[in-house]
């Protein structure tokens, strides 16, 4: 076989694998939406389920998902942004920074079931919070912390040095410079990280099922258990309760996650555009 033939063959194979990836995404999303979209309407989103989810809507799960996610993001965002500010603005490379970076990367690699076990032991049992919005939110907060730290730090480092120097030269303290110039400049990137954290929280199952529970009721307080949409979908599908309802829930989930991701990358695109 000639060199050119071998070359062309290899390139074709590579091309096929690339297209296969694109096709997989299209197929998965397409399949779920094709079967699920017809199920979705206002009533599906806004009414309570009937007969264990065989019929009716998914309202409690929608609320549960939003509650757990909002709590996780509300906790992880300030912690993550402050960490990123410290790493990017207040320290020089050294042992402490290496330690933080290692911990962040290691945390990002821990599987969600371990977060679930940890959250179960600490929040549900030891702290006595039970299966609840609070336990689930706290667990997810730890899980998405690395995502927020990394995107925020990147965004902060992308803020032009000249802006900082101007602020310092005008008598700005470090904190003034951070809050008035650096963070506003890094905002789109920070929000991207938050959005990715939202997407991760919304889609998470293993960590949530062990910490927030599976109770299909509208939560009245942060100490009430909830069944998030991902968990609801899992139970519907696994126990074969209702395929239609499962597809409908999955479609809501996918639309939400796609939407959040689009916002995230749109924001990211705006920064790259600004930097030229």
């Amino acid at each position, binding site marked *: 076989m000639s060199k050119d033939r071998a070359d062309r063959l290899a390139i074709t194979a590579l091309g096929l694998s690339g297209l296969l990836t694109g096709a997989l995404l299209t197929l998965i999303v397409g399949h779920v939406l094709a079967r699920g979209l017809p199920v979705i309407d206002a009533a599906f989103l806004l009414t309570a389920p009937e007969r264990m989810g065989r019929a009716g809507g998914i309202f409690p799960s929608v609320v549960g998902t939003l509650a757990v996610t909002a709590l996780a993001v509300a906790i992880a965002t300030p912690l993550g942004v402050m960490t990123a500010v410290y790493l990017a603005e207040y320290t020089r490379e050294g042992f402490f920074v290496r330690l933080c970076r290692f911990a962040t990367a290691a945390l990002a690699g821990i599987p969600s079931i371990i977060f679930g076990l940890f959250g179960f032991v600490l929040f549900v049992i030891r702290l006595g919070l039970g299966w609840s919005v609070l336990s689930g939110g706290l667990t997810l907060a730890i899980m998405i912390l690395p995502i927020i730290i990394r995107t925020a730090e990147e965004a902060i480092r992308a803020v*032009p040095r*000249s*802006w900082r120097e101007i*602020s310092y*030269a005008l*008598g*700005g*303290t470090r904190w003034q410079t951070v809050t*008035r110039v650096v963070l506003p400049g890094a905002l789109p990137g920070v929000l991207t990280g938050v959005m990715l954290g939202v997407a991760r929280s919304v889609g998470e199952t293993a960590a949530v099922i062990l910490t927030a529970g599976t109770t299909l009721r509208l939560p009245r307080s942060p100490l009430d258990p909830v069944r998030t949409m991902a968990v609801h979908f899992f139970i519907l599908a696994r126990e074969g309760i209702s395929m239609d309802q499962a597809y409908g829930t999955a479609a809501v989930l996918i639309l939400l996650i796609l939407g959040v991701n689009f916002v995230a990358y749109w924001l990211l695109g705006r920064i790259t555009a600004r930097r030229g």
Partner: protein
Amino acid sequence: MRQHRLVVEGLSFYYGAVRALYRVSFKVGAGELAVVMGPTGSGKTTLLRCVNRLCDLHGRTRREGRILLDGRDIYAAGTCPTTLRRRVGMVFAVPTPLPLSVYDNVAYGPRLAGRGRRQELDALVEESLRAAALWDEVAGRLREPAFRLSGGQQQRLAIARVLAMRPEVILLDEPTSGLDPVSTLRIEELLRGLAGSYTIVLVTNNPRQAARLGAKVLFLYLGHLVEQGPARQVFSNPRDPRTQDFISGRVG
């Protein structure tokens, strides 16, 4: 004898292993306009950054010698760099507006210093923009993003931003390097007007600009302060052959 506002004594500066300044000493009187000229890489920016302690922001640098502002060592223990920078304003080589409106750019410094009252700020912003000869051009566009201004306007905005701090000393690092001849002349005119009320140290790599501003001239060459004196003397009768080469355009 006139009181010297700024005194630099035996200043040396190192970026790690690279030495950028060699025992530089000079004095600038209150209200005087001093021009530091020198070819690229001679340490002009480094010198300015030492005077308002922006060089503190770099890691792994070392400095020897003293810099006195009104007789006080600005590097003495207990001196706050932030307070110092409010007294010593800096205009950078590349005109860079902060990503804010024209108004907020000028008001940035006073706000940091806690002067946030609306009326006071309005007056201060107008006064600073007038002093920087920019008011007539931007009076109607104060709320517009500052990056929409032209390069020359942006550089005058940077000067207005510094004037709003009511500093004692103004440092300018090649403020006209990116501008066309007309904008350059406008800025030079403006600086001549400001001299007297402010102590000014202007850095330039253009000997003709130094001659035009006709003030005290310092020639920095590879980190050494080779020559200093009144412009007339330095240009008509330089003592050092390197100065001669530079002003006649053979170096830099």
